[in-house]
């Protein structure tokens, strides 16, 4: 692995109020700790926004399963991280830049060791292969996907669906849910990417398909869907090619 950047990566750490709560923490200077009430508090959209704002790595620190103060806040965080990693991969960032660390609030004392380890892992990844604008654009699309209803409701209901029952009395197996999540994350990401791309100027299906690297038919399907939701509209027709422009989402 070659070290591409000479400076240590900028890392933001969101930490549960109860983890490492006892002593003065020694933190490497490239790691910025932000305390939150529970690691489950971390909205996926906030994590993506942190990446979009230039963080090279995000570390989430929570408590190990029996010790979470809010019963299952740490499990909620685990689910969010699973989804976030999918979104990051789609956005062209290495999923390893995000890490969820669950520690025992009593046993673990040495935060600096964990922080250093993570910092080095991120350092080894080096700079992202994509250009900065591209990544920011992707991250904004991902963030918007994560702020939208569909993904959030799925995430909020995951526990209920996989561990208890849905409205029809069925229990969805974990793998099935995972495949479902995969599809939805991908679709939502592409839709918000289309939305992002058509914000500045109207674009055709062909053009979008080229940028996104997917089939034009797939783009058209997404656009039909988005038109129904009021996310996008036909702007004008150039020759025989319709151009689409994003609408303001409320």
């Amino acid at each position, binding site marked *: 692995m070659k070290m591409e950047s000479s400076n240590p990566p900028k890392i933001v750490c969101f930490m549960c109020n109860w983890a490492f709560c006892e002593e003065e923490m020694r933190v490497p200077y490239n790691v910025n700790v*932000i305390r939150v*009430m529970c690691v*489950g*508090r*971390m909205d996926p*959209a906030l994590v993506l926004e942190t990446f979009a704002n230039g963080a090279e790595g995000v570390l989430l620190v929570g408590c190990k399963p*029996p010790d979470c103060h809010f019963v299952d806040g740490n499990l909620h965080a685990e689910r969010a991280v699973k989804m976030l990693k999918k979104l990051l991969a789609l956005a062209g960032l290495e999923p390893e830049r995000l890490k969820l660390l669950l520690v025992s609030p*009593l046993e673990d004392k040495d935060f600096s060791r964990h922080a250093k380890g993570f910092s080095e892992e991120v350092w080894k990844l080096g700079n992202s292969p994509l250009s900065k604008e591209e990544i920011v654009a992707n991250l904004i699309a991902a963030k918007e996907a994560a702020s939208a209803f569909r993904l*959030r409701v799925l995430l909020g209901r995951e526990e209920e669906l996989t561990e208890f029952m849905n409205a029809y009395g069925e229990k969805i197996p974990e793998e099935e849910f995972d495949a479902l999540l995969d599809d939805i994350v991908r679709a939502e990401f592409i839709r918000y990417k289309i939305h992002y791309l058509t914000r500045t100027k109207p674009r055709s299906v062909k053009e979008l398909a080229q940028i996104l690297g997917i089939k034009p038919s797939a783009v058209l399907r997404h656009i039909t869907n988005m038109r129904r939701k009021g996310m996008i509209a036909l702007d004008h027709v150039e020759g025989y090619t319709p151009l689409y422009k994003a609408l303001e989402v409320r």
Partner: protein
Amino acid sequence: MTEKLLQEVRKFPPCRAACPAHVNVQAYVALIQRGKFKEAVEVIRRDMPFPAICGRVCFSPCEDACARVNLDQAVAIRALKRLVADIEREQGRVVAEPVPKKYGEKIAIIGAGPAGLTAAYELAKLGYPVTVFERMDEPGGMMRYCIPDFRLEKFVVANEIAYIKDIGVEIKTGVEFGKDITIKSLKEDGYKAIFLSIGTQLGMKLNVPGEDLEGVINAVDFLRAIALEKKITVGERVAVIGGGNTAIDAARMAKKLGAKEVMILYRRSREEMPALPHEVELAEKDGIKFYFLVAPKQIIGENGRVKAVECLRMRLGEPDESGRRRPIPIAFSEHQYEVDMVIPALGQIVETSILPPELISKEKRGPPLQVDPLTLETNVPGVFAGGDVATGPASIIEAVGAGKRAAVSIHRYLRGEDLRKGVEEEKIEETTWVKDWRLLEKKERRYDAPIEKPHLSFEEAKEYLEKLKRQARFEAFRCLGCGPCAECLASMDLCEGDKAVVDEGKCVGCNVCAVVCPVGAIKKNEKGVAQVNEDLCKGCGLCAARCPERAITMKKLSDEQIITMVLTALER
């Protein structure tokens, strides 16, 4: 503080609601979780002045009420209290700042037991000049004179009382009520209010023939004589009669003083014993024998000394008004126990002879003092009474509760306020928040504060202390924090005191927040809009992180705030 407590609508966790003194259990356990041991003791002292004493001998109604029993076992609240108080004392006595005297009215408190000292402590904290009069040479009452050293060390009591003195309470010892001072003389000396907390000093009699033989000594007198370091000869074979904590204490004391054989005779069975099960176990470990379902018929003497106790066997009948089954003697079941010492420990009664006649109630039955159970007023204005003297022998923590109540009443009386306001409709609402017990994991209780201090070198001691602290924190982590905000007054970065707020315009009623909320604080109202119950909300923000419409924001740590923090962090 107390006054505020009584006026508020109370929403307490079960432990705090069960405690007669309403000690803020949740707050100090939360502080122990954080390793803030000193602050934990301070929190206990806000509600009562005896953390170390109650950490040793309280019968811990809080643990009986603990909601964790639904899952595994109660949190070891008493042991935690003992540990924090002990660590504080070991690191040097805390000298409290004297509270400046805000008011001019002098208050006299008669009897320096737990009730009197607590009342004095609370009133001194409010800013009154308080004087406590005590008959014995040392203050502390039953805590000092009747609980043996192996359960409650004298220096612990002295230490807690020194703290009360620090904040400005004057304690005059060797002053006997009824002889050196009376209610009249106190009023003439300018005391505007008097709190009578003389307790129950006389041991109850057996009422059987042979009670005045040499070798028969009441448990209270026996323990008091030992505490006073009087010379007492303990017999070879000792019979203690009764099944309460005093009986156990007396029996264990006799054993420790060299009695060859000590037996406890109790007229009911083991289940009905009022003594703490833990104490009974310790007594058994000490080799004390228990005889159940026997009651003394007479004490047989020889040359004026005890030779044997003659007992009758008992059987249990229907439950009486105390809820315990009534013992019924079995005819012709007399048998004898050869003993040379008999210690009756049947309970205590008020020394009515020293009470002023105007206070004694006319009725033959019931307690000797007429006291309003809510305000603790007697029929003489300005005179209040509480603790054992009003309720009959009870526990330290109940006396502390009475002392606090008296302090509120006396304060209101002196300020000319309505004594009953807010006290009558005193309703304690218990809250437990756990939505689904299935989601919680079991963590068995395996903690008890160490009884004895090992002899260690300096380095070892440091290590030992660390180990103790870690264990205590582990135990404290078992607390579920049932109540709403515990008001532990820790620095704000520990707990933001955050609450979720729903933007009703944005909410679509999808119910995700209600599913996610670990405490069941969010429910849909009749309009189909999510509503946050602020009493239950603990501010974890899980709902804000999941709300599909982002309609929920946190009052303090909102999303915008987190992003601003991120931006400032990244600019560095």
